[in-house]
């Protein structure tokens, strides 16, 4: 095999180089593709900066597992009572003296959680309320093939009911099991942080009814909000940090047993 001699001279080389450089500069000035692509305009970017960034703190030292949050959520958001679908629910973790962990959440905790393990076998027990973690890098948003679920500019993961095709990919993608297929509307359903309430200056229903103030809701950008104070005072953790979902639900007092 012999090498092919490049049939070109210096003049040709310079001409081609100049054309290429000139062409790319011209392209960067005119930007013909931009008019059809979906880049965010500068004005909307400024709009986003001024918006709040919603998040939630959960103090496990305070949660008593009464299930009022799960009950209020069902009422406020018209979540079907049966079969048992939940936007938020409470799990009871019981670590036995022999090391086994019992996790139970009958009816999502509605009506108060009851201990099924005899008291002499219990090493420790605690309640863990769960809900959508409103991840900043949400796996469900990436999985949606039609753009029906998205992270809103104020940091809430929402579902576009009219766009959802009901393929359930987002339900499989969610590592927290926070999504479900609504049996009435047949579209994906999930916690919205009670978006209709928070945009009117109210607290989400679960936060409103919590009798021990175990749930703290607020704006992560506002340094004076209750949530930011809660995060400053307590060493908090998020669920499944190794997945790097950048969750915005922060737990105080989270044990390693919690999955």
């Amino acid at each position, binding site marked *: 095999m012999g090498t092919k001699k490049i049939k070109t001279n210096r003049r040709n080389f310079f001409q081609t180089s100049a054309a290429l450089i000139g062409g790319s500069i011209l392209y960067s000035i005119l930007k013909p593709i931009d008019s059809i692509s979906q880049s965010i305009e500068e004005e909307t970017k400024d709009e986003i900066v001024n918006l709040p960034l919603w998040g939630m703190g959960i103090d496990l030292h305070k949660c008593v597992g009464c299930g009022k949050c799960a009950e209020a959520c069902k*009422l406020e958001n018209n979540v079907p009572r049966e079969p048992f679908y939940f936007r938020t629910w409470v799990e009871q973790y*019981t670590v036995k003296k022999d090391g086994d962990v019992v996790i139970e959440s009958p009816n999502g905790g509605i009506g108060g959680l009851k201990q099924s393990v005899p008291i002499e076998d219990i090493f420790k027990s605690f309640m863990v309320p769960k809900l959508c973690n409103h991840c900043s890098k949400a796996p469900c948003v990436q999985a949606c093939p039609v753009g029906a679920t998205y992270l809103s500019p104020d940091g809430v993961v929402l579902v576009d009911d009219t766009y959802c095709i009901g393929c359930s990919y987002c339900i499989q993608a969610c590592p927290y099991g926070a999504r479900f297929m609504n049996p009435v509307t047949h579209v994906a359903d999930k916690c919205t942080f009670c978006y209709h*309430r928070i945009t009117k200056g109210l607290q989400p229903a679960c936060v409103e009814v919590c009798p021990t103030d175990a749930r703290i809701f607020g704006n992560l950008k506002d340094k004076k909000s209750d949530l930011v104070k809660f995060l400053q005072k307590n060493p908090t953790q998020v669920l499944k940090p190794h997945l790097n979902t950048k969750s915005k639900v922060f737990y105080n007092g989270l044990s390693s047993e919690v999955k």
Partner: protein
Amino acid sequence: MPKLIFRLFFSFVVFVSLFIIVQRFLKPDSFGKYGHYRANSIEDNQISTLYYKGEEKCTSCHQDVYDLKYADLHSEVSCESCHPPKIDANTECEVMPPIIKGSIEFCGQCHTFNKGRVKKGVPQLELNDHYKGENCIDCHNPHAPWELKK
């Protein structure tokens, strides 16, 4: 340019421009304003019936009950924790009063002894041993639990 390559190139250009034109017509107006979704859907999500009105709304009429509650152990418990609105609470609570509960099962949601609840500032009781068969509100004032009636 060979004819074959020209045809290929030509059909490629035709398909791409056709795609762009069709996409322009099919795409909803607000799609892509903030990202790969319909921006108007954010407003759609804001429209929903408010059932829980919030403590301020209750206090606007029931200031006396609020003051009583605030001075006692149930101060952190908001009104609607125990008085959930009726399902069609878009009507005011004057028209449709909230549900009132005071049974031992209801109070037991928080106060039944459970190992997962101890040391959390909520008194834990073996409810069967604690005054069998009576309702909690027969003795306790729910707004001020240590105001005993008996």
